[in-house]
Structures are given as structure tokens and as C-alpha cells.
């Protein structure tokens, strides 16, 4: 009787989500959650886990109807040939995590009315170009419209329709990207700036740098006029690769090629900053190696920022940093190698006691370990630039083999002495 009463109470609320069972303990405490009974115990699934009490401690259990029971009751009350009512029930089911039932109900709705907007939306469809399509297809259509410069229908019709159905964060980010670019193409510079700033705040770091750069450009040029200072693309004149490059002069940031040129200038500025730091580092390398290292790290950050805007634009400078660092390490290796040679000479000349002999071998081994560690550092620096630093890599690998062979000999000798 209690159960029926609770059911009716819940149904009075109609669309309200299904409630939790309520357990009253004999000591007066109450718990709410899904209740099951087993082996003389009462188990309550609460938000933080499951609590268990012996049935003897329980005063009463007030059971609420399950979501499925509520749905079935609801379906019993409506006209199942009414697509709107069915759709409403499906939405309730979806809200209460009855996904399978919701999808079945939505399919029923579409069998009655194939163009039922809400049901289509709930199933992830939207209407564009006179046909129903799923979000990925609609996204591709939106990107195509942006590329074709059909931005007004894109912003006024297609994107709002997609926004109704999209819930995946990655697709939502793509949607915002298309919208921001669409606004820019339409010359809505203030709105575009805001949209890019929002994207910069939410996107992954790799994408955020580019969005941030665009937002900065639009902040600096609120009227959307950018001054192209060199023909763009830069190779157009030299390689005759582009039949109609951008000529130097003022141009609208609403044109994608102008935005690309502005972003390239932004990246160029970062590269120039990094290059200055590299020059400072070169000046400090001999006298203050730690300060030089810090400058190289800062330069690397500038190059990261530049590469995030124009991929690989700073690569040749990264190669140069790696080459310079390899050179510095190689100088250190030469010093260690000289030390090793001196120790080796000592080994040949003197009549050594076993202890002194062992000590000498240990020092030689330590020197070899230092060299090995330096060679590994060379490989770590050079291997990301295999094409450019192939000689450095080959040399380091060859020397590493020699060092390892020498280490084996010394280790064997030391083991024999123990």
C-alpha cells in the first residue's frame, strides 16, 4: 500500500526524476539511496558508496518507485500514437538514465512522424540543406561553407542548428572555432575577437596559442585592417609558387590569407625574440654557462610559441641550439678523454701496488662513465633532428660503442681483483 502511495506521489510530479528509497534506523538516523536486502542486512547505495546495517537495526524502509516503473506508468497514461507525448516520455527516460528505452521511444516517434524535430535532435540529428544529418556530417558542411565564404547562412542557420544537438566537447570546440572564423570572415571583428579569446581560454595548449595570437591581433587592429609588409606567402616571389600572392599594403583581416600572413608575422616576432636570446647565450657560453643555458631555455620557449602558430617555423633555430649544446658537451668530452689518456699513461709507467692499481682502474672507469653520460646527452639532444645532425649522431654512437667496450674491459679487471 505504501509502495502504491509513493508511486502516485511521484507520478503527481510527472516529469520529476525518480526518487531514492528512505531508510529509518531505530536510533533515529535516516539514509536515502537505492535499498537492497540480503542475508539479514539492508544495503543502501548512497552517493559516496554503499552502507550496510543489520536488518534488526532498521525501523522502516520507505520505498520509492524505480525510474523504469515511473516510465511504464507514464506510458500507460499517454496516447502512444501521439508523437509529442511519446517524445516527452523519451526525454524523461533520457534524463533518468534510461537511455535504451529513450532511444526505442524516439524511434517510435520517428515511425509516426519522421520529421519530428525534437526526436531527431535527441537522436543527434539536425536539419540542414533540406535533409537530416548527424553532427559530424553537419560539421563538415559548416567547414565547407566557411571555406566557401558563405558565412551568413552558416552563422544564422547551420551553426545554431548544430549547437542544439552537439554535446561532445571536441565537436563543441570545433563548432566554436568555425563560428569564430565565420564572424571574422563577416567582418564582425569585436565578436570574433571575443570568440577567439574564449577559445584560447578553453582549448588545449597546442591550439590555444594560435587562438590567443588571433585574439591579440584583433585587439590590436579593432577595425580589421592589417598591414602586409612583405609579399605573402614569403616564397611566392622566389619560387613562383603562388600565382596571386598578397601584395604588401593594407588588407582586411576578414580574408583568411591576410589572417595567415598576420599570424606568420606574429610567429616571426617570436622567432626573432628567440634568436636574440640565442645570441645572448652565445656571448655567455664561455664565461657563464648556466646563464647561457637559461637563455637557450627561454629561446626554446619563444620557439615553442612560434611553432604553435606556424608549425616548424623555428625548427632551424632549434637545430642550431642543439648543435651548439652538442659542441659544448663535446668540448667537455675532450677534457674527460684527455684525463683518461693521462690515467692510461700512468697505468703503463708505474709499478703499482694492487690497491693503487685498483684505485687507478676505478678512476679510469669513472672517467669513462662521465664520457658515456655526455655521449648519451649528445644523442638525446641530436636525435630529434636526425636529418640535420646525422654526423653528430653517428659520431656519438661510434664513440659510445668504444667507451662501452673499454668499460667492459675495466669492469672485468676490477672484478678479477676482488
Amino acid at each position: 500500500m505504501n509502495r502504491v502511495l509513493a508511486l502516485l506521489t511521484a507520478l503527481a510530479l510527472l516529469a520529476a526524476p525518480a526518487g531514492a528509497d528512505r531508510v529509518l534506523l531505530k536510533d533515529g538516523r535516516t539514509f536515502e539511496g537505492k535499498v537492497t536486502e540480503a542475508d539479514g542486512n539492508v544495503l543502501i547505495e548512497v552517493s559516496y558508496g554503499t552502507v550496510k546495517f543489520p536488518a534488526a537495526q532498521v525501523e522502516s524502509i520507505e520505498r520509492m518507485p524505480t525510474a523504469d516503473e515511473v516510465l511504464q506508468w507514464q506510458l500507460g497514461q499517454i496516447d502512444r500514437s501521439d508523437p509529442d507525448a511519446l517524445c516527452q516520455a523519451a526525454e524523461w527516460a533520457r534524463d533518468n538514465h534510461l537511455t535504451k528505452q529513450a532511444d526505442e521511444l524516439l524511434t517510435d516517434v520517428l515511425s509516426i512522424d519522421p520529421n519530428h524535430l525534437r526526436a531527431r535532435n535527441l537522436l543527434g540529428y539536425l536539419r540542414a540543406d533540406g535533409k537530416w544529418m548527424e553532427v559530424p556530417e553537419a560539421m563538415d558542411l559548416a567547414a565547407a561553407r566557411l571555406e566557401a565564404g558563405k558565412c551568413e547562412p552558416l552563422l544564422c542557420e547551420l551553426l545554431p542548428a548544430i549547437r542544439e544537438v552537439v554535446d561532445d566537447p571536441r565537436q563543441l570546440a570545433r563548432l566554436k572555432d568555425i563560428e569564430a572564423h565565420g564572424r571574422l570572415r563577416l567582418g564582425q571583428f569585436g565578436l570574433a575577437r571575443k570568440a577567439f579569446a574564449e577559445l584560447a581560454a578553453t582549448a588545449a595548449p597546442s591550439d590555444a596559442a594560435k587562438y590567443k595570437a588571433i585574439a591579440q591581433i584583433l585587439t590590436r587592429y579593432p577595425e580589421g585592417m592589417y598591414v602586409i609588409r612583405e609579399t605573402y606567402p614569403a616564397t611566392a616571389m622566389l619560387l613562383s609558387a603562388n600565382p596571386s600572392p598578397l601584395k604588401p599594403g593594407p588588407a582586411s583581416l576578414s580574408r583568411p590569407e591576410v589572417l595567415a600572413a598576420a599570424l606568420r608575422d606574429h610567429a616571426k616576432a617570436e622567432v626573432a625574440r628567440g634568436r636574440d636570446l640565442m645570441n645572448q647565450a652565445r656571448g655567455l657560453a664561455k664565461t657563464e654557462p648556466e646563464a647561457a643555458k637559461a637563455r637557450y631555455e627561454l629561446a626554446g620557449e619563444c620557439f615553442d610559441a612560434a611553432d604553435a602558430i606556424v608549425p616548424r617555423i623555428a625548427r632551424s633555430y632549434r637545430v642550431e641550439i642543439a648543435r651548439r649544446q652538442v659542441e659544448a658537451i663535446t668540448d667537455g668530452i675532450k677534457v674527460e678523454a684527455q684525463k683518461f689518456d693521462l690515467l692510461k699513461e700512468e697505468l703503463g709507467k708505474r709499478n703499482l701496488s694492487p690497491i693503487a692499481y685498483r684505485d687507478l682502474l676505478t678512476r679510469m672507469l669513472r672517467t669513462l662513465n662521465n664520457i658515456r653520460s655526455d655521449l648519451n646527452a649528445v644523442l638525446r639532444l641530436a636525435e630529434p633532428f636526425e636529418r640535420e645532425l646525422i654526423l653528430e649522431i653517428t659520431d656519438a654512437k661510434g664513440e659510445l660503442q668504444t667507451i662501452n667496450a673499454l668499460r667492459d674491459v675495466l669492469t672485468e679487471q676490477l672484478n678479477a681483483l676482488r
Partner: protein
Amino acid sequence: MPFDSRTILALCLLAAVIGLPARGADPPVPAVEGIQQGLTALSEGDGRLAEQIALAVTRSPDRGAWRAWLIVATARERLGRKDEAADAYREFMSRCADPGERAYAAGCARRCDRAKAAPAADGSRRLTDDDLARLAEVADQTFTESSEHFVVRARNAELARIVARQAEADLERICGTLLGGQAYPHTVDIHIWTDVAEYRRHATSAAEWSGGSYRLARGEDGFMIRRIDLTQLDAQRRFDPAVLDRVLPHEMCHLVIGELFGGAHCPLAINEGLAMMAEATTHNGRIRLAGAAVATGAATDLSALLRLGRCDDVNPDVFYALSYSLMAFLHSRLTAGQFRETLGHLKDGLALDEALQRALYEPPNEEFLASLERSWRAEVLRQSQFLQALDVAAIPY
């Protein structure tokens, strides 16, 4: 609001079309929309409309409306009205706080000023037959003429004066190209020897076949020796004007490159190409020779050309022709800044393709050198065919 921005813009244009006085009569145009319309007209090649719209915008009280002066300036320059364009560029500069944009506008204004100025005559073109006869005279004594950067010694006082003046002009041009207008704070001795025999006796380090040479070395006293040796008379005992037009700027360019590169290596083809480019007249003969070499497959490929350490290893004429055409091609296709930056990277030891990619801020591309070579060869052929079409056989150089 009684009018929207589009209506106001249309009214402005209407006023311009029916000839209402421009100043004071046109209502101002909202900046953003007007600037965008001006830019659209500019990109569509309608300079007149761009200028009209942008001029209307400049009268707008909106923030940033002054930026439309750059559209006005660009439109005027593209319409060939250089004087008015220079004025508009200066209007823009006077309001602009961005150093990069100011530098751009200043460069454009200078370009417009240069275009309206009459081209200056240089080299031997101003010399008459009488002048040439006088310059062939040889006195018993040596005359010395000095200028800001040069001390010229010759046995002809007039020749020494002309060479000193010409040397200053050449130096300015060469420094403009190679050093970005940077000063050359040195003094160079120029010796003009009467004939080849005398020249060979004194310019001992010069190649036997040469009629001029340069020397940049540290002397025994620790001071740098900067010296150019030239020859006054040819085999027929006549003054050869090529000394002024070709040999002097050529050797001076080598000297400046030597100074610029310091101890760093400059590929021979680049060094010689730059030196020929510095000469006062165009090498039509060399362009035709380079074209013929490319057309017949006799041209050395670009990577080999850049590796050559001695031109004796190949046909020297073809080598010089290819070197000249390569550097002239690069100079014509790059901005002055990009060209100088490329030289700077070459000095740092980068190969030409790497130096160019860096100067252009292009991501490294293994195919770059091949693309560059294709583009260069196509240009060599195009220029050589153009000269052939003009039938320039009669042109002496």
C-alpha cells in the same frame, strides 16, 4: 538613427560622383565599415573607389579612422600618383604609433619620392670622347685625390677626381644592398696604374689576367690594408670606361663582402655574383650566356655551382654568367631586408637554401633548393629569350 552606415557611405560616394566639394561636405563614414569597404575596393583593383571611401573615413571621428590614410596612400600609389601617395603615407605616419607600420609607411613614402626624382646618371655614361681622350693622358707625376672613404692615386688628376667621386657613389649603392645602408667606417686606397705591365708589377697578389684587384689583409704593422688596384689604359693605350663601370664597383664589392663576412667563408659563386651585380651596367651578354647554358644543359646544377671553389674547374664565362644571374635573380625576388638577412645567415655558415628559408621564415623543406633551382632557371631562360626577342646583339655588354 535616421541613416544607417551603409546609407551614409552611399551618400559619400554619391557626393563624390556628382562632384560636391570633398572637404567639409561629405558626412564622415563609420570607421570599421568604411575601412573594410575601402580595403575590398583596393583588393579588387578599384583604386579610385578605395581612395574615395578611405578619404571619407579619414574625416570620421571614430577611433582608428586615421588608419584609412594608408588605404588612400596605397590606392594613390597604385594609380601612379606618387606625390599625393607620399603625402598620404606621411599623414598615416604622423598618427601611427606602431614602429613596424611606421617603418613600412616611411619606406613606401621614400619609394614614392624616389620614383618622382629623375634617375641620376652614373659611371662613364656622362663621359664624352674628349673626356675619354683626356683620361687617357699620363703625367710624369702621381696625383692624389681623397674623399670620405677613398684616397685615389693616379697619374691623371682628372681621373683621380672622377674615380674618387664614382667610388663614393658605388660604395653607397653597395652598402645599401649589402649592409642595409649601414656606414662603411674605413678608408680604402685606390691605385690606378698606367698599364697592365705596371699594374702587374704592383698588384702582385692579383690574377695575371685581371685588370683590377682588391686586397683586404692585416699588414705587418697590425693595421688593416684595404686597397683596390686598377689599370688606366688598355692594350691600345686608350682609357677603358669599363674601369669605372665594371672593375671599380666589382672590386669594391669584393672588399665590402670580405669585410662583411670577416673570416667566414662566402661561396665563390655568391661572391662573384654579388660583385657583378654591383657593377654599374647590366650584363646582357652574361644573361644570354646563362640562358644558353641552361637551355643546352651546359649549366652546372645549383648545388654544384654553390660548392665550386675555383672557377677554373668549369668554363669560367659560364660560371660567371650563372653566378651573376643567380644573384640578380635573388636580389630581384627578395625584399632588401630578406636579401640582407640571407647574407647574414650565409656569413653564419648556413648553406644558401637554409639561409633563404631562415630569411623568409619558412619551415625547413628538403625540396627547397630544387624548387629554387627550377624557378631560377625558368627566369634565366625567360630573360635570355626576352633579350633574343629584342635582338640585342648590338648591345656591347
